[in-house]
């Protein structure tokens, strides 16, 4: 079946656009040991599909006059912390928010629920946690890490990474540029060339599943079909790879999957989900939240 003829996503570009436009309101507080005097927090609506290092320059520029060491504002190697947990700068912002705050959309009617909005983070420069954070000497480190995942996703989709490797210089530049400048048309003008137009040429779905609390990230090869007539859905895949948490293929009994801050329907076919809702690196980064 051709992805573009899928009845599930009539407003195809609408869903991709909505994923692209998602934001998390963030409040950044300068760590006390970095500041020589008190300063108001920095507020920003951060794109869910973007990365924190792209925001660091404007954040450090704002705090520069208040830093004990103003020259450190020129460095990119800052780090953010939420409730004592350093944020992995190479993970998309939306994923970090959903995972670290234990986002649970089922609580939307609960007036007492803490959504952690704006999401309050503490900004540090000292004591860079090298055990849990990759080095970030310059934007090149971010690009290299992102490109490796783009290559992986291509390999997973097709069984080889030649489509990505054979992108023209202009295309590969534009793909990253689209992320860096948050330009939807620029990014998708190249990204659409990377996605197979037929599910028959899709070998596996690039997917990572983030388990709550345990820090465990599950990654395994998931084909688009269970059998020639039956697509792998969110539910059939979760049941296969996490049977203890997902004993049913259609109903969430113990836990729920979250993508881009929303519950994922268990019956959604993975191939179409990939086409419409993938992150910029080509992966579906899915969080699991336990049912309260």
């Amino acid at each position, binding site marked *: 079946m051709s992805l573009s003829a899928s009845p599930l996503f009539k407003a195809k570009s609408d869903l991709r656009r909505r994923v692209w436009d998602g934001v998390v309101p963030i409040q950044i507080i300068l760590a006390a040991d970095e500041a020589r005097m008190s300063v108001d927090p920095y507020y920003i609506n951060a794109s869910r599909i973007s990365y924190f290092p792209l925001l660091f320059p404007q954040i450090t520029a704002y705090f520069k006059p208040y830093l004990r060491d103003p020259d450190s504002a020129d460095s990119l190697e800052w780090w953010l912390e939420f409730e004592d947990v350093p944020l992995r700068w190479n993970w998309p912002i939306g994923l970090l928010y959903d995972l670290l705050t234990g986002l649970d959309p089922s609580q939307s009617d609960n007036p007492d629920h803490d959504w952690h909005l704006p999401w309050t983070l503490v900004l540090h420069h000292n004591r860079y946690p090298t*055990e849990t954070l990759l080095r970030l000497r310059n934007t090149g480190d971010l690009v290299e890490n992102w490109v490796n995942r783009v290559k992986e996703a291509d390999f997973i989709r097709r069984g080889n990474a030649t489509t990505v490797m054979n992108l023209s210089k202009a295309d*590969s530049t534009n793909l990253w540029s689209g992320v860096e400048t948050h330009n939807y048309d620029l990014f998708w003008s190249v990204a659409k060339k990377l996605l197979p137009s037929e599910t028959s040429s899709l070998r596996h779905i690039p997917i990572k599943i983030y388990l709550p609390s345990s*820090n465990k990230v599950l990654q*395994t090869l998931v084909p688009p079909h269970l059998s020639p007539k039956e697509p792998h859905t969110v539910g059939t895949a979760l049941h296969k790879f996490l049977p203890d948490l997902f004993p049913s293929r259609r109903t969430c009994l113990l836990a729920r999957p979250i993508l881009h801050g929303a519950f994922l329907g268990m019956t959604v076919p993975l191939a179409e989900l990939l086409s419409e809702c993938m992150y910029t690196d080509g992966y579906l980064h899915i969080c699991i939240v336990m049912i309260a």
Partner: protein
Amino acid sequence: MSNDYSCSFPFLDSHEFARAASALIPRLQRAGLACRLSGPNECPDAVEFTVLRDTDHFTVRTQAHIVLSPVYALPTLYFVSTLTDGLTSSTRAITLVDELYKYTIPHSAQPILEHSGIYGMSAVSQAENPITNLIGFYVHPCRTGEVMQTINQDRPIPIDEYLVVWFGIIGSVLGVGLL
């Protein structure tokens, strides 16, 4: 069903990897390396081993994992190197590739690590270990897969020998080899 040869060489599934890993352990032990299998008993998913390098001025301790890449279905080496200064005894993790070449990776291993593929990047780079989630370095597995393929064409490699052959290629990155 037991087949002594991988059906999709050089790629391995988790059972083939577990089998190859079990066969590697005695060879690592014979080479004098502290090592063990880790993961579920029925299907171990990693080989852990430690390499120590002692000089007059510093000691480098490298903690390594051999795991099956969930992306490339090839064994992949992840490692963390810590450097202890001989004079001050202060210890820190090595976090830059340049330092790796200074302290951990011998010159003889450079041909294995020449630049590969897209954007001209190095074959050794920082990464999150998929099992521990901690930061270390890894050797990108694709090129090793190609080398294994070439060797296999000369003489088919049974699963039990897969990681032994593989280690003969990759172990040199950490300055170790099997006897």
